[in-house]
């Protein structure tokens, strides 16, 4: 069965770009347009999400709050979460880490790198 990956970003073009790469690599991609929406999508798939990739800076609910919200729920304790950042924002990374993120990727990234990292995290 395909693994589900949730990508949360307020930029449609990023969602599509990342989504397309992952779909071509054989994953099933779910999309959320902001933190709040992302959490809703995640919950509607119960525990069938293998990885969450989230932007940090979004309206409604930002990435850090999304991570906090997700980690609150015991069934999502072990879901890997990758953060997308535009520049290496050290403090944001730390905040995300404290909230429970697994790792991060700095935009811009190449498709190859994205797939390598995703593969490393969820195989």
């Amino acid at each position, binding site marked *: 069965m395909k693994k589900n990956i949730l990508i949360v970003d*307020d*930029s*449609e*073009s*990023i969602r*599509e*770009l990342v989504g*397309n790469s992952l779909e071509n690599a054989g994953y099933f991609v779910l999309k959320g*347009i*902001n933190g*709040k*929406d992302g959490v809703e999508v995640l919950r509607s798939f119960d525990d069938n999400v293998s990885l969450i990739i989230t*932007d940090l*800076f979004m*309206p*409604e*609910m*930002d990435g850090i709050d999304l991570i906090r919200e997700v*980690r609150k729920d015991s069934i999502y*304790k*072990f*879901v*890997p*979460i990758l953060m997308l950042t*535009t*520049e290496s*924002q050290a*403090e*944001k*990374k*730390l905040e995300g*880490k404290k909230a*429970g*993120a*697994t*790792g991060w990727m700095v*935009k*811009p*990234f190449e498709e190859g790198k994205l797939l390598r*990292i995703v593969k*490393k*995290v969820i195989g």
Partner: protein
Amino acid sequence: MENLHNIYLEEAEDLFSKIEESLLLLEKAPDDSSLIAEVFRSMHTLKGSSSMYGSNKVADFVHNLETIYDRVRGREIDLSQPIIDATFRSLDHLKKIVQSPDIPDPIDAKYHEKLTAEILGLLDESEGTDKIITRAKGTKKKTFLISFTPDKDIFINGTNPILLVDELAELGASQVFSYMEKGLSSKTFDPKKCYTSWDILLVADDDVNPIKDVFIFVEETSKIAVDKVFDGNLLSLPEFTSQLPPVDLKGKRLTLKNIQNFISKIPKEVLERQEEENQIMEVEVTEEVVTEETQKTHGSEESITSIRVSSDKLDELMNQVSELVTTQAGLSMYSENNFDPVLNAIADNVEKLSRQLRDIAFEMTLIQISNLFRRFNRVTRDISNQLGKAVKFVTEGGDTELDKKIIDSLADPLMHLIRNSLDHGIESREERVKKGKPEKGTIKLSSYYSGAKVYIQIEDDGRGIDAAKIREKAITNRLISKDDKLSEKEIFDLIFVPGFSLAKSVTDISGRGVGMDVVKKNILDIRGDISVESKIGEGTKITLGLPLTLSVIDGLLVKVQETSFIVPLVDIKKCFEIKRDELSNDFNELIKLEDDKIPYLDLRKEFLIKNEDVPEKASIILLENENNRIAVCVDSIVGEYQAVLKPVGKYYRNQEFVSGATILGDGSIALVLDAYKIIARKIVKQKKSA
């Protein structure tokens, strides 16, 4: 990829108009922190997606802009007019260069440089404390020993330690040693825990930070030690690597002492040569540390529950639904003629369902007019600046929804009307003050529903249109004669006559002779109408009446002999039944209805339908459009009919009655009458004969 790029362009377009809208509001309220945050966030998103879509020039450009707004947001600088102006110019420039991000045009490239310099200049002025210059510690390769003993519970937050080790390996040449905890048995083994640890010899740049960064997520719970063991690349020396122990899960861990011991056994001259090879020029690097966002933007926007669908798909859907409606009409007709109660019930249901389906599909093709309005917001600002006039631009009813095709074809005429208002309507500041009007003129663009139509109004409080002047000019242009008696409304309508322009001097903004007649033609093309009201000294109001959609109309199906016609319901005022004799003796083509004499049009005559078996009774349909009335004479009225409008083809382009055709349920064709054209033609005729 092509498709993705289009999404990027669309998104960029959206972001541009969002930023513009916020900026225009910010001009009025420069302290609104939520607006500033909005601008910043949009720029941030734009930068992120631009960098991903490979246009670094765009991304870098936006980055600089973003930095300015970051400082504004952090209250380090005020949002000054120069900044806003520069941003507007930058947006215009960005709109151009997102299309071709390499900026092939040398003029654009030059402008790009100029704007970049200007923005950097603004940044320098606001230079804060966050720009620091760091001297990189050179790029000499060093060898590090990293020992990593993860916390046993490391798996719990989804971290895969192998990933971290791999990430280290990406930093440079490496040798990895892994170990398993001793004394594990199948009884004590817990699959949820991590029993592995690592020692890594890594050759990397002389900076421990990237290495430590790898462990940023686990450093609190795991044991991590990073030590520089040698100023050079040890792993390239066979004298060193030959001393390393074999990789053994149960082996002893490497220590600093081990390594130093190995190094001491390497001949000195080998070590010196290695150091020389590593001499690389030191470089100075300017690094900008981006300030962290301190403010959290709280969501005030409503959650978005919409999806983006390509308009082609929607058109296709509409087309299919149209066909369905046509087919359903056939079914209904057949069922009415065959008295089968079961069939009748089914046909009724299908009719109801397809009508609902049609309505939903139709609603999907509607878009809010606010996007269009927003565009004019910007235009008004630019033009009024150019003309040196102070203008307040107000919009109302931006949530009014219209067919996308209509909105698209409204852009040009509305633009022209607004330019006219700005150029000719609104007076200069001095003139306004002299007249006792507020210094700032107002242009109001509003939109509302009424009946089956949407009305769009452009209202200004400028000098108004002088009916006497129009009359004068029309006489000198020989459009009317001196003795013609025209109502005020008729006089205003003259401005729509081709070649009629009131502007005394031709300016950049308007008055190039092609004008209101083109506007009127554009509006007529989308089955709309246009009217003018004006009072000298008080202002002008132009009203556009538009249909909601272009593809489906509600009409009345009528018959002349065996030929069917559709009359749009919106234009029908009343229907009467008369005796045919009442018409035949009238040479003026006027019919007396409700104590009023109204010109009439006999379809039998106009369409040259044979005068055989003419029924004694005839039906009169009274059409009304803009206070003009005309009666249309037909044999009989069949009933209401929803017509899916199809174009009639180029041979019929110049005819005067018909706006399209539709296919009836039985497969025959009915022409759809264009009330506006009929009235216009008849009235011209009346005037000529009068």
